[in-house]
């Protein structure tokens, strides 16, 4: 006997849990199937950046609607998720970079987006006193901040269940097919039938897409992070670079998280990664040059999450191009965390009503039609 639901959500990362919550808030009954436990992978172990800054144009509407929710996150999920807002600063390392940033900010303003602000040397030093003296300026997005990724994912999971979603963890979807007018998923916990399906399976979403005859060129990546022991507070905003890979933030407990996207080697069928110390050394050298005060900081832990990257670095969000009733929500390429709350709300609207007010042009799976997975 198959379980039935209004919507089957595949994947218990932040996006899956957010969609499940918002579907439940609309009075629908979702079942979410997660092969490990909610937040086990990228959603639970990323740097926690809640960032509007430096996004691809196609992501900006989702990012703005998500930011509204982050600012009321406790109301939405009953937990503050460790969210603190002190802005994100994109630091320019030389004048040429700064000129490039100026052009970008001007272009955004022409399009009606005002969340990015160009700053000169004095304002940069005021916002980030510890940054190296050679940096001429940057861009700030003042509403940005950071949160705890695992706590956030678990909070969405918990609230979704409270509102009526069913969570099945430790179960893998092994098959997905149209059977008698509805979708039937074979899972290791038994079959589930639902008229609508959301593919939020992260680094494994290409497999779900393949089951639907809709292959996508998804690359499995394992971005690495390092964290230090607790230091007295010396930096408030999150700092990122463009020319070199760095994201840098200090949490409330004093520890500093260093990320930026240097990649480890993933083994997605074994839930494991092997760190690349040469690349982490490059990361350490970048921090050395940019934040001299960090030179004797102690790194106590390093890790990597398993994530999906699309060739154009933007996600696949929207209806399936081939299968009615199926929707995709994956491929966030290492920057999906901030988009979680808003994308879940948008997806629930799309699934429940057939359309959405949030522009998601440019994110559809059809852009890969003709490309083999």
């Amino acid at each position, binding site marked *: 006997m198959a379980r039935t639901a209004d919507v089957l959500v595949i994947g218990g990362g932040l996006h899956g849990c957010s969609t499940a919550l918002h579907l439940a808030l609309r009075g629908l009954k979702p079942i979410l199937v997660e092969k490990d*436990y909610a*937040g086990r992978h990228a959603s*639970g172990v990323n740097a926690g950046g809640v960032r509007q800054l430096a996004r691809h144009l196609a992501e900006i509407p989702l990012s703005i609607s998500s930011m509204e929710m982050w600012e009321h996150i406790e109301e939405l999920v009953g937990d503050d998720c460790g969210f603190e807002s002190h802005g994100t600063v994109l630091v320019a390392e030389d004048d040429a970079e700064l000129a490039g940033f100026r052009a970008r900010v001007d272009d955004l303003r022409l399009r009606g987006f005002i969340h990015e602000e160009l700053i000169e040397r004095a304002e940069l030093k005021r916002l980030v006193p510890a940054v190296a003296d050679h940096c001429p300026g940057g861009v700030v997005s003042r509403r940005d901040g950071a949160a705890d990724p*695992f*706590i956030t994912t*678990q909070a969405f999971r918990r609230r979704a269940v409270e509102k009526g979603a069913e969570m099945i963890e430790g179960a893998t979807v092994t098959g997905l097919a149209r059977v008698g007018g509805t979708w039937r998923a074979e899972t290791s916990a038994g079959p589930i039938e639902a008229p609508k399906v959301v593919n939020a399976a992260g680094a494994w979403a290409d497999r779900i897409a393949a089951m639907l005859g809709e292959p996508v060129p998804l690359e499995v990546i394992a971005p690495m992070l390092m964290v*230090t*022991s607790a230091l007295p507070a010396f930096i408030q905003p999150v700092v990122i670079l*463009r*020319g*070199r*890979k760095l994201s840098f933030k200090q949490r409330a*407990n004093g520890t500093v998280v260093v990320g930026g996207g*240097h990649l480890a080697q993933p083994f997605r069928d074994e839930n*494991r990664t*092997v*760190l690349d*110390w*040469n*690349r*982490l*050394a*490059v990361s*350490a*050298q970048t*921090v*050395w040059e940019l934040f001299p005060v*960090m*030179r*004797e*900081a*102690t*790194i*106590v*832990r*390093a*890790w990597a999450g398993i994530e999906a990257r699309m060739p154009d670095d933007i996600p696949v969000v929207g209806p399936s191009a081939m299968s009615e009733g199926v929707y995709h929500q994956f491929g966030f390429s290492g920057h999906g965390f901030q988009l979680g709350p808003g994308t879940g709300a948008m997806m629930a609207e799309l699934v429940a009503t057939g359309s959405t007010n949030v522009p998601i042009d440019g994110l559809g799976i059809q852009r890969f039609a003709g490309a083999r997975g």
Partner: protein
Amino acid sequence: MTEAADLASSYDLVVIGGGPAGLAAAALAARAGVSTVLFDENPGVGGQIYRGITSTPITNRGVLGEDYWAGAALAAEAKASGALIVTGATVWSLDPSLQVGVAIAGRARLVQAKRVIVATGSLERPFPIPGWTLPGVMTAGAAQTALKAQGLVPKGHTVVAGAGPLLWLLAAQLLRGGAKIEAILDTAPRLNWLRAVAHLPDFALSAYWSKGLALLREVKAKAPVIRIANLEALGDDQVREVAFDGRRLPADLLLLHQGVVPNVNLAMAAGIEHRWNARQLCFEPVLDEDFGSSVPGIAVAGDGAGIAGGTAAAERGRIAAIAAMRALRPEAAVADTQAIRQKLQREEMGRAFLDWLYRPADALRQPVGETLACRCEEVTAQQVRDMARIGCEGPNQMKAFLRCGMGPCQGRLCGLTITELIAAERDSTPAEVGYYRLRPPVKPITLAELASLPIAEAERKAVER
């Protein structure tokens, strides 16, 4: 003194840990012509059992006993063998490709190995009692280290508490060194005898039998031994008293010991499969008969392979070295391990009896209330139990919620406690609950050390946007 810049970029055999297993393995391999390096983070070799063997200020051989001095031969053998012995070298990473990350005097290097022997030994089982984080509360091993390596002896009111053969050895050494012990509080549950007695015949045939009895007699003649069920360390910013079974004793130093367990951090971080040993109440690596692990090319020898003591450790190191030599030089004639395995078997006899007799009490492994389960992040037993009860199923989720296991010790002093508490609260077993997911760096490294890794320009360019 070998510096990081002196290291070659690769060696045939890298031995990690300079205790009896590591020393024996390095000596055997190097003598056979295998290019061998041994790394130990301490200022000298010897591990724990032979700590300070090349530099101890203790001149009276009777204080530490003849078993200790046997370590001198091992150290000398390794030194003469041609192996490169590097002390003050902290290995912070080992991965399945056999790349070893090591830091010496503020500089880090990556060294490629063809074979690795992990010989990082054991550490004392956590002993979570109220007040166990107070200054003046230390492990029995800590006092032993201070005695062997620096000739330090406890002064003031000293109380020793716990269970296990090493407890009696330590007490004997301290007493011979002139320490005055107020009391030895024996926490081994009386009922342990019922399970131990079945293994008595084997034990009676082993070397432990006569040595053990002699030690017990020696210690009981010089210090009062009291059997106890519960224990607390009391004091404000330093231990002042010990409370047990409704009584109190003044204490300036409380030495705790309830057995040793494998130090799993490097082996687990390297991806080596482990399993729960229900008799010894700890996790140990899954190994073949040559001490080869689930990661090809990496062997685990010594107490890290499972608790068996110092002499067994040296034999295990030799077996692992011979297997490494066979892999590196398939055409060369290699020693037969038969004789070594027989010696090993004799050493391991009697182990079962000791494991059951000194099995630590549940209450002293699974704390309650405000007792700290995680020392580094100051997480209480109650917090862990509550979180487990409301649905937190495993230590990795517990870590993310409470931060236990996220401090600098990386779970060395809390891992077993957290796993056992979750199992107890959820009516499960440690085998099912599992352990923290451990990653390199297994010892903290500074940003400066990591930034000092020599990286080819090509590599640097490859990772820029």
